[in-house]
């Protein structure tokens, strides 16, 4: 199941619900990612982006009621491609940076892999 494009990659997962996070970590590990780092809060995510290098990120849009715009901005500033993750309807996603793909919860591991492949493929 490991994927050539994803193996050895370092991925940041910004998700505040433990059970959902554990599943995403499992999916990414199955895909061959080298390391998966998790943040449950905007502050922790910003601190991690400041100190570590990531190849890609998954970003929950709504962190316990707080929007994650500042995290998206920090990722853009560092050139880290990312995918938004949300429980909201597509058309309810307002103010999000539309340059980036959106995964709607719940999602399948194939969908996650497909999006990450697109984010990481050199075009």
């Amino acid at each position, binding site marked *: 199941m490991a994927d050539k494009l994803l193996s050895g990659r370092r991925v940041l997962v910004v998700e505040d*619900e433990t059970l959902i*996070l554990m599943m995403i970590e499992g999916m990414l590990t199955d895909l061959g990612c080298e390391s998966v780092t998790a943040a449950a809060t905007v502050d922790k995510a910003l601190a991690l982006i400041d100190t570590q290098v990531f190849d890609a990120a998954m970003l929950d849009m709504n962190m316990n009621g707080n929007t994650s715009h500042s995290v998206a901005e920090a990722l853009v500033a560092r050139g880290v491609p990312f995918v938004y993750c949300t429980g909201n309807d597509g058309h*309810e996603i307002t103010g999000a940076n539309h340059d980036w793909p959106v995964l709607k919860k*719940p999602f399948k591991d194939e969908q996650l892999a497909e999006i990450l492949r697109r984010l990481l493929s050199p075009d």
Partner: protein
Amino acid sequence: MGSDRAERSSIVILDLYVNQIDPPASMSDITKKSEEQEAAEAEVERFRKNLGPFVVAAETTRMAMVFADATEPHNPLIFANDAFLSLTGYDREEVLGKSFNFLMAHGADAEALARIKNAFEGTSNGGAEVLYRRKDGSEFWTGLFISPVYDGHGNLVQYFASFVDLTLYKENEAKSKRLIDELNHRVKNTLATVQSIVWQAMRTASGPQLIREAIESRLFALSRSHDLLTRENWESAGLFDIVHDALEPFEGAKRIVIKGENIRFAPKSALALGIVFNELATNAVKYGALSNDEGSILIEWTMEPTPENTRLSLHWQEKDGPPVLTPSRIGFGSRVIERSLSHELEGTVNLDFRPDGLACTMTIPMPRVTRGR
């Protein structure tokens, strides 16, 4: 008092009607129209006599109402009742003579103008919703109902308009939209959580029976936490209730003692703690103090002040169960407990598999502590 009011109101009406029938005119007009004028004044008098009580009712009702002149361009207002004045914040002399649409918050709003036009032409059903602006600048939604008023010759002379304040209705509408969005968000997250529960069970449990048990146990735990939070209007839940409700369905729950304040946790933290205590109890029933007939569990917690905030220190102590063996590998239950505490609650947890009984110690920082009610 009522009669004073009625008299004053009638006078106002009479003046207004005279104004309407007798517009500013040149000297020649006045002489030319004197007969017409007399007829008109008589008409007003008749109108007042016939409809006097209704006009008084219009003046004193709590529903905002105006009469507008149908014979002039822009339908200037010729009558406004007290309710209209209190709804809009204007004095009577400030509104009389103004165009009917002077209150519109966005005067160029073509759609709203079309709705008002339809209301004037009687082609709208149930009135038009229009956003108006008060004298103080604040805006409000109103439901506008317009009826034409004809004179004795069947000529359209006035429009009678009433306004229903839709502020509360609009607020409720917005609130229910927010609630539906919030509900959808929660449902989707819950479905993802269920997906995770199934996903983990398929990976760690072997055999359909064990997989089913692993899934059901966690779904029921989630369900009980939802019940508790629903009873609390999804505002918060008390720790005592969270622990009690998580453990209550387990066999041997009578041998569990819970001691501690009902410290409040936000819904998300309450859900996380519900899962944690479900995992601990599942372990106790399978391998620990609840797996025989003698064992018992003591759960107690205290709040400890720290330089930055307050810290919750919780101890789960099992005793008199069968001898405890340190698990050969870290199971999903232990990982959920550890991750929930560190990731979601920003705390720490220590699982000590002592031979005489599992001891679990949790430390959770309480940044915004709210004491039990």
